[in-house]
């Protein structure tokens, strides 16, 4: 039986109706939409407090005197190692050490028996894939794999997220094939920043309802999240909704995409939520700010402007060490090359810091390696140092800024020096916990610190150089802060927050639960290495006002002493100031137990030291 045209039309209408009806019912608010589970709306929350260690490194004079500039002739010889890296000035020492995209004759790498290729790779996933390909070939019997990369370098605060998925995959080959951090090349020192309207900087609470473009769950996002946490403000982790009581995010594909979205004035329409529930309202939102790093910050300023650096790795100076990651088994089997490479990088750091000729050379090499359009050698040099320029609207803005590490910086960073906290452990755990707490369904856990760091090679470099570990000095605000006391009183406040540190009644002695709160506090302060700290003591109104003033001072002083005892290198004299308020500044009426409890507090202010 042949179908009549009417029959065919009827079939099409029924088919179309069923498909559209099904799509509608399952998609939207239709009756059947519950059949297909959707992702839960994520509620805005105050990020956990991120306590950062302080950190300063010291120049090693010996290598400076003998420094020579590398030639431009490729050295060749031996198996070439391959390293993938982002465009990032923290690697300036590495650039100088290598002499070019490939190791050159007369370079520090060449002198240390290393032949290295440096390639720019902005995509973190490609880095992970390269390490997996390398490990796979290594496990198949080739001791010098031709595929993938021997090393990658990334921002240290993102290590937990980077290594979580990567090492889960690598463990399938064997536990000895996991990726490990073997050292650091430098720090971001301001070039990674949270850029937003001026009034957010003056009054952090004004950022409620703001919209920032950024690459989520990564280093620069971490800066903003720490700032929110330190100010007790909410973050909206749901990139699909808009919460007027929190900071909201437009998720970008990478740091340059975030930059571009701000410049273009990107807009979206989103569902409005409050307290984790949809209000039924929709609102068009526009990007107000951006988190990015050089060359992104330079592009934002020159092409659009209108934002300031609210907070950056200048203040959070320990947050972003440039960590060097390699495959454990290969590193163990080639420890001489790893150690030679590290020594060259450290000497390169010394050279760049102490010699303008070396810095200029490093900048020229950066131009060759990064191949950034319209960025010549002077560009990389200028933004390595950091500078203040007028943006497109004529407002001054800080741009760029990085620092290089030497051997001493590494020893201080990893807590190998007496009196130094393990600053990197604090950074790693702080931001690992942060991403897990904000996105538990995406990343439920991260590897333990001890499983992802291998300091063997660093220690062997120490033995080779004969350096006296106990006496090293930091040269770098990320490893050991240099305190200029004269600036303390005029420094601007970055953040302030009340800490629930418990004391015994009427005394300045900590109670049993205080240590866990104190350990969070020290991590927070270690990350924000380049800052002053003010500890404000407050009490309720019970008892004599003079006694309360004295009590608040002694309690604040107890916190100060605890911090300075834990990490004298990171909390040198003058970094922490104690201010007592007694019962003079209550937050709540003292006529209820709850009010009294709120008033018994220690408030920590973090102030910029620049």
């Amino acid at each position: 039986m042949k179908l009549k045209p009417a029959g065919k039309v009827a079939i099409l209408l029924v088919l179309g109706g069923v498909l559209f009806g099904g799509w509608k019912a399952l998609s939207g608010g239709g009756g059947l939409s519950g059949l297909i589970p959707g992702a839960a709306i994520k509620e805005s929350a105050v990020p956990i407090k991120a306590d950062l260690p302080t950190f300063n490194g010291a120049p090693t004079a010996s290598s400076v005197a003998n420094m020579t500039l590398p030639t431009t002739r490729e050295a060749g010889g031996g198996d070439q190692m391959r390293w993938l890296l982002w465009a990032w000035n923290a690697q300036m020492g590495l650039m100088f050490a290598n002499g070019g995209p490939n190791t050159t004759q007369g370079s520090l790498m060449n002198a240390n028996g290393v032949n290295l290729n440096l390639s720019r790779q902005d995509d973190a996933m490609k880095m992970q894939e390269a390490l997996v390909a390398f490990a796979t070939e290594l496990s198949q019997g080739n001791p010098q794999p031709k595929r993938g990369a021997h090393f990658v370098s990334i921002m240290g605060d993102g290590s937990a997220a980077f290594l979580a998925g990567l090492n889960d995959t690598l463990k399938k080959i064997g536990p000895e094939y996991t990726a490990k951090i073997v050292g650091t090349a430098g720090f971001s020192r301001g070039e990674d920043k949270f850029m937003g309207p001026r009034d957010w900087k003056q009054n952090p609470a004004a950022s409620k309802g703001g919209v920032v473009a950024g690459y989520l769950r990564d280093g620069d996002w971490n800066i903003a999240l720490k700032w929110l946490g330190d100010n007790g403000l909410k973050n909206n982790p749901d990139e699909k909704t808009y919460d007027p009581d929190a900071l909201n995010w437009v998720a970008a594909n990478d740091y340059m995409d975030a930059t571009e979205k701000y410049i273009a004035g990107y807009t979206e329409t989103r569902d409005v939520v409050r307290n984790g529930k949809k209000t039924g309202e929709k609102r068009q939102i526009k990007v107000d700010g951006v988190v990015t790093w050089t060359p992104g910050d330079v592009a934002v300023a020159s092409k659009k402007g209108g934002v300031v650096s609210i907070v950056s790795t200048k203040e959070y100076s320990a947050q972003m060490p440039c960590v060097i990651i390699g495959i454990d088994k290969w590193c163990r089997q080639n420890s001489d090359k790893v150690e030679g490479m590290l020594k060259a990088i450290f000497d390169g750091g010394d050279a760049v810091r102490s010699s303008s000729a070396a810095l200029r050379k490093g900048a020229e090499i950066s131009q060759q390696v990064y191949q950034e359009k319209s960025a010549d050698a002077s560009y990389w040099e200028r933004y390595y140092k950091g500078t203040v320029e007028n943006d497109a609207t004529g407002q001054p803005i800080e741009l760029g800024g990085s620092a290089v590490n030497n051997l001493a910086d590494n020893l201080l960073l990893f807590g190998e020096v007496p009196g130094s906290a393990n600053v990197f452990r604090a950074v790693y755990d702080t931001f690992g916990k942060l991403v897990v707490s904000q996105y538990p369904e995406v990343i439920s856990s991260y590897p333990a610190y001890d499983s992802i760091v291998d300091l063997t090679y660093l220690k062997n470099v120490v033995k080779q150089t004969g350096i006296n570990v106990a006496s090293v000095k930091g040269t770098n605000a990320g490893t050991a802060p240099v305190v200029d006391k004269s600036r303390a009183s005029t420094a601007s406040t970055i953040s302030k927050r009340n800490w629930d540190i418990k004391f015994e009644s009427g005394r300045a002695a900590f109670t049993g639960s205080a240590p866990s709160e104190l350990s969070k506090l020290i991590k927070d302060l270690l990350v924000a290495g380049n800052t002053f700290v003010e500890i404000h003591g407050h009490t309720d109104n019970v008892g004599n006002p003079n006694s309360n003033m004295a009590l608040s001072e002694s309690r604040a002083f107890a916190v100060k002493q605890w911090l300075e005892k834990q990490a004298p290198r990171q909390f040198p004299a003058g970094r922490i100031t104690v201010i007592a308020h007694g019962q003079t500044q209550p937050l709540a009426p003292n006529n209820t137990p709850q009010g009294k409890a709120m008033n018994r507090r220690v408030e920590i202010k973090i102030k910029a030291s620049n």
Partner: protein
Amino acid sequence: MAQAKSGGLLDAFLPNRSISRTTLITIVVIQIALFLLIWITSPFKVLPKPGEVASAFSNLWNTRGLGKELLTSIGLNFKAVMISSAICLVLAYFTVIPFFRPIVSALSKARFLSLIGFSLVFTLTLGGGPALKLSLLVFGMSVFFLTSMASVVSAIPKAEFDHARTLRMPEWKVVWEVVVLGTFDQAFEVMRQNAAIGWMMLTMVEGIARAEGGIGILLESEKRFFHIDGVFAIQITILVVGLFQDYLIGFVRNLLCPYSNLSLERK
């Protein structure tokens, strides 16, 4: 015509033979089994096994809203297919008028351009959001659709035009009968191919405005945290949905144009 009869398994390996449905199903099952065997015994330990992919799929479906994201993506792709089909069919039919031929030819050559390069231009013009995604997708699909459809129109034999003219049809009537109705079945085939192109491009453009979600966002998130099993689960989902889309357009084509297969050797 003994050669045209349905034969046994042996015919599956001889040229120009037809086989029974049972034989075809047997072949497909064997090939799928072979694929699974190769996958399970793969020497690349870092790649997930079928069981891991199934677990990842279950997790994505139940806790990450894979189903909802899929519906979002299907909706976007459907809109893009409809819009690009409407635009390109009209333009292709207009190539019967000489004035429009250079324009269509120029647009066709835009298929060599990269989508990514247009991101800033489109953002400045449209302001971002779903309109940006849709427009990039429509653009990406249209340049290929137009190329294919314009060549279908230009390949119409002269004899068909002459036949219509001998029946005393006015030129516009000739266009309707010969160009529009006459290529209707081929328009469906071109649409099917372009729907597949769009489905493939979808994961590229969804990252541009992530607030609406979509399966591409979920894919990027799994890749971002190096969850290879999740990536595989989503890729297979994309493939299955793509196959269904292909089948559906084919079904509609056969329903409306049953004549289109009559002259073919392979039914």
